[in-house]
């Protein structure tokens, strides 16, 4: 579904990605693990068009999308949940979700998506009219994911959904991610520092180190890999 070939991204003179290649099969959950500054967030931002690549190609459903503006990319069914729960703090929960469906013109579909999100995260339904800035961290993360789902994506990118959340909430969020993947057939690219959990729910994974892919394979074998174990799984 998504193929990246030799992607290079720089911030000014500093290189962030030095020619990475990866592919995500339709209907799968693929995780990208790596330490701080490895280039995980940069990869997602480049796919969703927030950053422009210096070189390399990004193919989505067989068509090149590298360098397109973000709203063009969202239109094609890629949705990005940015790191750090970037919700719209001054809008209500419902308005946040409506902003997620910004590119959908048909109000019937918007309503349908809204029902789906509320069914997935009942907590958001309870808080429908609350100003989003007053939600707890976990609720904000649910809102960020729900908002991304509102655009009816075929491909969802999640940037550290577990960041700063209580373990119980992390569990809930990961369960929902698996549920969305199974029930909607949504392809998911997951960026995580919590490598253990990420590899548990994903089908395959890539290890990113200082802008290069150093390892990849199916999640089960990555979990057995001694290098991954010592560097990311605390083993």
């Amino acid at each position: 579904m998504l193929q990246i070939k030799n992607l290079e991204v720089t911030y000014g003179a500093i290189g962030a990605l030095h020619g990475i290649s990866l592919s995500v099969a339709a209907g799968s959950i693929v995780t990208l693990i790596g330490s701080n500054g490895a280039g995980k967030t940069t990869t997602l931002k480049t796919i969703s068009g927030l950053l422009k690549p210096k070189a390399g190609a990004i193919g989505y459903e067989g068509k090149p999308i590298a360098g397109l503006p973000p709203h063009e990319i969202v239109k094609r069914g890629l949705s990005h949940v940015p790191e750090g729960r970037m919700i719209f703090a001054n809008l209500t929960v419902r308005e946040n979700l409506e902003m997620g469906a910004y590119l959908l013109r048909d109000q019937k579909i918007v309503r349908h998506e809204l029902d789906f999100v509320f069914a997935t995260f009942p907590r958001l339904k309870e808080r429908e009219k609350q100003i989003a800035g007053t939600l707890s961290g976990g609720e904000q993360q649910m809102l960020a994911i729900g908002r991304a789902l509102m655009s009816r994506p075929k491909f969802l990118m999640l940037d550290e959904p577990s960041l700063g959340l209580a373990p119980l909430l992390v569990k809930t969020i990961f369960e929902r991610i698996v549920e969305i993947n199974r029930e909607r057939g949504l392809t998911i690219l997951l960026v995580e520092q919590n490598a253990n959990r990420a590899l548990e729910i994903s089908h395959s994974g890539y290890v990113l180190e200082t802008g290069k892919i150093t390892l990849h394979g199916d999640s089960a074998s990555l979990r057995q890999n001694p290098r991954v174990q010592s560097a990311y799984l605390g083993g």
Partner: protein
Amino acid sequence: MNTSQPRARWSDKLAQGCRSIRIAFLGLAALGLQYTKTSLLIAIALSFLVSLVADRINPYWLYISYDIAISIIMAVSLNLINGYTGQFSLGHAGFMAVGGYAAAMITNQFGHLNFFAADGIFAVALLAGGLAAAATGLLVGLPTLRLRGDYLAIVTLGFGEIIRVIFQNMNSVGGARGLSVAHGWTNFFWSFGLVAVTVYVVASLVNSTYGCGFIAVHDDEIAAEAMGINTTKYKVTAFVIGAFFAGIAGGLYAHAKQFLTPGGFGFMQSITFVVMVILGGMGNTIGVILAAILLTLLPEGLRYLAGIEHVPGIAQAFPLGWIGDTRMIIYSLLLIVLMLTRPQGLFRLRKRKT
């Protein structure tokens, strides 16, 4: 004998002042907290009714009321850019200048024609001023709104100065000598009717589903972009609409003062409007309106106090003449105190319909 005369005048003026303020607040109350079409029409009708009895209102206070109306239009329109959309613009007086000069040129050229009623020509001139300012807003906004925060502030500041310098060097509009405006057509109806229109348009815009986009851009530009919101389009839209109403305010200003000089649209003017927005609470329309009224009345009120040599009734023991000399210092100090005690604005956050 000596003190009874000024005392009578003092209380008279005070009563008159209170009456004018009450009238202004009546208009506001009509708008209420909900910006429906009905309240818009009521506010326009009210300002029309007041304009019918305008010759009974003290001309000084009438004049101040125009200033208040112009300030409100400027502050509310700037609030769309600075408050709701979060783009720090420091050049709002520049748009006002464009609108003012454009409208004045039109009425000076065609004002004597009797084709339509004077009000018709005035309406066309105000609209043209607004459109000229909006076009300038588009011209400035398209390249600059890709910038963020401080950079945008600096660029808009530069733009405001460029406009001022251009008018200063345009001989056809009098250059630095200024341009006299032949017709003093600004009246209570036009000024407060247009306040109502501005408040209605800005408020219903940001309360609409489309308008949530402005607040989304303000809250988190990257997230808004990731949602597929064309943030540049939203920023330019806010800029153009804000500039349009600033241009209209400029037209009202030109036909109230009947004299325009480029110096009247300088950097300090822009700052005054920014202060109104900040003091009112960024993104709170009612708060910004009250701040605009307050900050227009404050220097006038201090000027008014300055006219009194000492407290009436009490002989020279408490001279008050110094207020006149230090008027602007007191004004600045009051601003500092207000900012220290209410940094979030007189009102916090926007009032939202649920």
